[in-house]
């Protein structure tokens, strides 16, 4: 049987940010610069930027409790056609549990039955091709995967 060798994942960048509100802007700018030229269309790059910002906000606020001395770690890798951004905090299971238990429902929010907030994970899921969450002890990581080179659902090329 012939096996086609798949290239090993290539680390493109890794960096840390202090857990201070607003630093998600630094994360999205740096990730955008890192993946420039790797085949993401403008619209998909905007989606990845939004997902990175939301995941970094969650890590800063819910994972690390806005404690600047605990860094949010960001790693960008390319794995074949996939760009994978891993964003880690030290919140353990608490990071994921900080999100809303229910799917955001705009009508319920307008009627006061749900908080106006709670859009973060919903937006992330709708922005990227895959979202995975792992927890290893206190280390909580969200993995954002975006395929390059192809069109997303409903997008014409």
């Amino acid at each position, binding site marked *: 049987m012939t096996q086609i060798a798949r290239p090993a994942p290539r680390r493109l960048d890794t960096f840390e940010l202090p857990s201070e*509100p*607003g630093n*998600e*802007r630094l994360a999205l700018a740096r990730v955008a610069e890192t993946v420039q030229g790797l085949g993401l269309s403008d*619209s998909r790059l*905007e*989606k990845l930027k*939004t997902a990175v*910002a*939301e995941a970094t*906000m969650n890590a800063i606020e819910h994972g690390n409790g806005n404690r600047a001395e605990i860094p949010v770690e960001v790693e960008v890798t390319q794995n074949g056609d996939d760009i994978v951004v891993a964003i880690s905090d030290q919140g353990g299971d608490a990071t994921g549990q900080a999100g809303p238990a229910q799917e*955001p429902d*705009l*009508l319920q*929010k*307008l*009627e*006061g039955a749900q*908080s*106006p*907030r*709670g*859009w*973060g994970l*919903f*937006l992330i899921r*709708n922005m990227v091709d895959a979202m995975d969450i792992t927890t290893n002890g206190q280390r909580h990581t969200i993995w954002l995967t975006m395929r390059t080179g192809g069109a997303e659902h409903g997008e014409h090329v």
Partner: protein
Amino acid sequence: MASMCEATTRVLPGAAVIELSGEVDGSAADVLTNAYQTAVGTDADLGTVVLDFSAVDYINSTGIALIVSVLARARAERRKVVACGLSPHYREIFDITRLSDFIELFPDLDHAVSELTGPAA
């Protein structure tokens, strides 16, 4: 965290316009609330609030929450909210969140005003 959002308001016949610039995130709560209050004033007959995002370069989930709050307040006051100047990316986010089911979207302020005030005589 200091807000990176600014708002200016003006009143047209039957509509108030809130022109936003910068970043619409959680830190913009006071800016947006005050702008809404200034825009609608005490005019109970003012039927429409226009949110102009032409000069906004960033909206995040907490900014979406603020827009939801503005929409909820406007609905409670029986006012319509329309929006203009959103980039294609943020138009899609308005679609995904279903905000566009409740907020009519226009490409720019001229289109919004033209629609709201009718064709020029």
